[in-house]
Structure formats: C-alpha cells, structure tokens
C-alpha cells in the first residue's frame, strides 16, 4: 500500500485497526489453523537447474542499445575477421567459385606418396591448406580450387620434401634453382585454361 496517498482519516483507521489486532485472541488452535492453510497451499516451484537458468537467460528477449559508431566498429571487426579467414583458407573447397576466379583441378598420380600438396606462386609456396586428397583405388591425388586469370607457377610437394613437376602442364620452366616449375594458364571468364 502506498501510504503517501492515504488521507489523514485513513491513517487513523489503519492505526486503530492494528491496535485492535493486538488485543484480539487468536484462539487456541491458531497455530494449527495457520499450518493447515500452509499445508494446502500450492508448493513453491523447485529451483531451476543451472543449465535451465542459463537457457532461460539466453532465450529471454533483451534490448541492447548500441551507438552508430559502436555498430560500425563491430561491423569493421567482423569484416576484418572474414577477410582474414578467406585469405588464410584459399585452398578450401566450396561449391561456389568466387567472383573473378576460375575453377582449377590439380591431379597427380603418386600411389606411393603419403602426403601431397600443391605449392606455387598463388599461395606463397606454402603447403598449409593446400593438401591434396588421395583416392587409394587409383593412386591419384587431387585438389580443386579457384585461381585468378593469368600464368601461375607451381609444383607438387610430395611427402613434405620432394618437389615434382606436373607432367600434364602446358609448360615447365627454369625455377632459378636449377630445377623446374610447372606453368598453369588460367583464362578469364569460363574458367578454361588456354
């Protein structure tokens, strides 16, 4: 009750009523009657398990207030993370070819190899993320990716140590170290090589 809204007569009535309560005799069975009412009352709900409390917290709609500058900063973080992810995982296979790139499949017959990767000018000569898949039935190693148009030099790196040129490449050229690099030509548009 909001006592600020009570008028003076109401306050007097309340005070006298409370005084009368003190003079009343509750009766000998007062305690039993009280306990009886408590016993018939509906039980309190059991405390929720921790996981249920967490789920309830997560599911409850909330209002979050963010300034425009804050949302821009968050968006910039997200874009940077996405850009880094795409940059780090260029060899990842996906069903969709990114715009401006053309699908390319590398194939090497190396049945005795334990591991084969493609390294070249398109991935900084780094094997991470460019490991080829092996088909034990045929002994073929394959990797499908997407590359920009132009000329790309590459080799297959067998078992992490041995560079091998592609016998099916358009050209094999001097790598400057006394060995050879294979050359892959990727054309614009429909992804076929010249």
């Amino acid at each position, binding site marked *: 009750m909001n006592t600020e809204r009570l008028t003076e007569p109401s306050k007097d009535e309340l005070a006298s009523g409370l005084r009368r309560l003190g003079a009343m005799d509750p009766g000998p069975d007062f305690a039993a009657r009280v306990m009886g009412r408590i016993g018939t009352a509906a039980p309190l709900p059991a405390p929720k398990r921790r996981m249920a409390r967490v789920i309830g917290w997560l599911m409850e709609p909330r209002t979050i207030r963010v300034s425009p500058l804050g949302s821009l900063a968050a968006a910039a973080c997200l874009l940077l993370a996405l850009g880094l992810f795409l940059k780090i995982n260029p060899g990842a296979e996906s069903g969709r070819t990114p715009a401006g790139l053309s699908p390319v499949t590398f194939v090497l017959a190396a049945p005795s190899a334990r591991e084969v990767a493609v390294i070249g000018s398109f991935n900084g000569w780094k094997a991470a993320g460019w490991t080829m898949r092996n088909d034990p039935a045929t002994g073929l190693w394959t990797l499908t990716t997407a590359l920009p148009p132009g000329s790309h030099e590459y080799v297959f790196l067998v078992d992490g140590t041995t560079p091998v040129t*592609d016998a*099916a490449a*358009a050209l094999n050229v*001097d790598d400057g170290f006394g060995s050879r690099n294979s050359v892959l030509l990727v054309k614009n548009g429909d992804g076929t090589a010249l």
Partner: protein
Amino acid sequence: MARLSSAILAALLLAAACFGAPALASQLAGTLQRAQDERRLTPEEAAGIVTEINEARELGLPRQPFEAKVEEGLAKRVPGPAIIQALEIMRGDYAFARDVLARGGTGPSPDDIAQTGESLRLGLTRQQLTEMAALEPPAPPAMLAIAARTRAGLNAVGFPPSLSDGILCTGLSAGLLTPGWEQLFRMVQRTRASGVPDAAVAAAAARVMAEGGGPGELLQELGLTGRDTRQAPGRSN
C-alpha cells in the same frame, strides 16, 4: 561506449593501413627464423639472403618477388647458397629489365619490372629484350612487358626466332599487344598437335594483330576453339 568504439575503429583502420609492408617483412623474418631453427639455413646464409633483398630494395626493385623466391626456395628445401645465388641473378635481371623499360622515357611500374625480369628467367634473352625496346615508336613499359612474356613463352616451346620477331614487331608497332597474347605459345602447341605449320600460325597472328584483333580472333582464324586448347580431362585445367 562511444569512446571505446572510437578507439576500436581507429585501431582497426591503423592495422589495415599498416598491414602491407611491415607484415610482409615480418613474414619473411619468421620464415628465415624457422628455417634456421630447423637447421635448413645457417645464420650466415640467412644474413646473406637478407643482404640480397636489401640490395634489391636499394636499387629500387620491387621487393615482393624476391621474398617470394626465398619462400619458394625454402619450401623446396633448396640449400641456402643456391637461394642466395638465385637472388643475385634475379637482381641482375630485374635491374636490366628496369633500365631497358625506362629507355622510352616512361618509368616502369613494379609489376612491369617484375614481369620483364621474370621473362629473362623464363627464356627471353637480354638481346631480344633490347631489340624489342629499340623499336620505333618506343612501346610503353606495360606493353613491352607483355611482349617480353610473349616472347619468353614462344622461346620456351622452340618457336622459330625469326617468326617470333615478325609477330612481336607487328604487335608493338601497332600498339595492340594485349595481355592475352602472352598465351600465344599455348596456341602454337595446339596448332602443332593439329599439324599446322609454325609459319602459318605466325602469318595468321600478324594478320590478326594488324587488323586490331586479339587472341580470340586468332583462335577463330586457325579454326580452334577454347575447348580445343584446354588440357586433357583429369589434369590441371
């Protein structure tokens, strides 16, 4: 909240602006350190590599191709002295390419220098590059770089030098040498497989160039399609 957001945004922009050169240099430093840790390079060899890259930078040559060559050598387990030697040869090629490209009066871009320098590794001779640069009127550096790549490819497949001279003289004189012509060597490979003489290819190429056509028109002239020039199924595309 606004102040924190401003700080985050400023940090992101600064990181993006600074991401280029320092990140590249730190990447190579990391690569060289790992190679030393794995005993693939001695400290002296790593220092020699850094010296070569710094000398190239002091000559105003593009840095990225040199760093990429180091990455390539280390990935292939090439001995340190061989990497250093390759960088030294590369520095000479790039410097020569830059000087030749600049003779026309227009400064070449880093990409023009790299393309032309690489062409010297891929089969173009210095004399051939000099002769192409001496043609009148002088070709712009970008077109000369295309000519260099085209000639390197033709040399690599053994196309007769006199026929190559004719094609590239026509292209450079007409100012119509576009990047697609760099793959002319591939057309030569396919026409040879079809029994077409090199002389016929050279004549068709010169005719198409003189008419302002490109590699697509040459394909039609020779009766080829893009499918005809694609490599066999199951191979690198």
